[in-house]
């Protein structure tokens, strides 16, 4: 257990160090989410309700996650880093967990900027939206990391990840939008917890088969 945690910590540190040196994922995500919010401002006609804007916030979050996930396995694929990782004497699921945590850090950082920007551009957000975003992030990165690893193997790569990911993201959007717009969001937050738990387990168990033959 301790060994596993140490492996994960090393792998997360690797990803964060790579990002600190190359800086090619997080700035792109930040710019993307801000651009998306500006586009949404012009997509909503005047006197549209705040509720419609709340829905668009979730669109922005899901698409920003896709931008981050598309970059997640670039080094592994292009520098053949994945061969080294597979040779390392660690559990394969540790690779998944570490990559998920790294993507979670990027997505969280993007949202730290995006949520205040949303509040400034559109309308204020309550604690239930923040809680829903936090819960949704967990599910998004758990599923998304496995799908990003799958997409990295295919020929279509960047093209196929959104196709694989969006049908699986629909329940996240339902939970997120529901928690943002209704008065008592407990049911929706509970649903997001359920989604996180179910898909984290299946992702954790199946990742080994994605990276090995």
């Amino acid at each position: 257990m301790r060994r596993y945690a140490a492996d994960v910590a090393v792998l997360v540190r690797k990803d964060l160090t790579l990002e600190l040196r190359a800086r090619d994922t997080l700035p792109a995500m930040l710019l993307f989410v801000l651009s998306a919010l500006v586009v949404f401002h012009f997509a909503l006609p005047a006197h549209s309700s705040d509720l419609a804007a709340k829905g668009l916030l979730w669109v922005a979050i899901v698409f920003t996650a896709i931008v981050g996930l598309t970059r997640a396995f670039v080094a592994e694929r292009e520098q053949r880093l994945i061969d080294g990782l597979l040779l390392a004497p660690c559990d394969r699921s540790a690779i998944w967990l570490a990559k998920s945590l790294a993507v979670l850090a990027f997505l969280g950082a993007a949202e730290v900027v995006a949520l205040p920007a949303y509040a400034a551009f559109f309308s204020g957000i309550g604690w239930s939206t923040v809680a829903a975003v936090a819960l949704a992030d967990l599910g998004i990165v758990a599923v998304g990391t496995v799908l990003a690893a799958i997409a990295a193997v295919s020929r279509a790569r960047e093209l196929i990840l959104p196709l694989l990911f969006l049908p699986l993201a629909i329940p996240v959007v339902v939970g997120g939008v529901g928690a943002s717009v209704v008065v008592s969001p407990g049911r929706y937050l509970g649903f997001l917890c359920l989604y996180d738990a179910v898909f984290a387990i299946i992702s954790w168990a199946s990742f080994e088969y994605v990276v090995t033959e």
Partner: protein
Amino acid sequence: MSTWSRNNPLTALAVLTTALLGASVVLIFFYAPVDQDGLNQKIFYFHVPIALTSYACFGWGALKAFLHLWKRLPSADLESYVAIHQGVIFGAMTLVTGSIWAKVRWNAWWVWGDEQLVLFLVLFLFYCAYFMLRFSVDPGPQRANLSAVYALFGVVLIPVSFLAIRLANSYIHPTVFTSSGPQMATSQFATFCVAWAAMLSLAYFLYRFELAGKRLDANLRELRELIT
């Protein structure tokens, strides 16, 4: 008869399927009573069995995917793929028949309040992506693994999406349609069961037929490689 059917399983299955389909059509139009919805209620006997058969195909595909990952059965990958292929075909038929039914019943081609239909749309998108994935990876053990993992995600997505759509309806559509209509009479239920058996048999026949074709194709390719 029994030796003949053992020697020609596909033909026997085709005969059985044709008989069941014929019987179900006769029962639907001549035996089952016309209820208060009128003649258009008859599409129920096609739409619901097709939808349930589609679920069965997806479930079978996921089971085969699981067996591939767990037991490494050599034939499981192809069987999983063919089952999901049939599931998508029946899923498309579900969307079409459901859409027609919605038009007749609610006068709209698409009704977001119909949970089953929305669920099928999500599943349809999901499994179409499965095909995109499969055709963009070179054949081999890795493709088999990726497809199997994605198929397992699909079978988990079915109940999760169902729950999600239930939840979404409470903030998008406050009123929930009940597509089952009034309680079924015994004759209606019997007709429904025969229709469902016919659809399952049809799906199973198509599954075996496609599988036989694919295997023949693979054997032929092997032979050709041996010759050259």
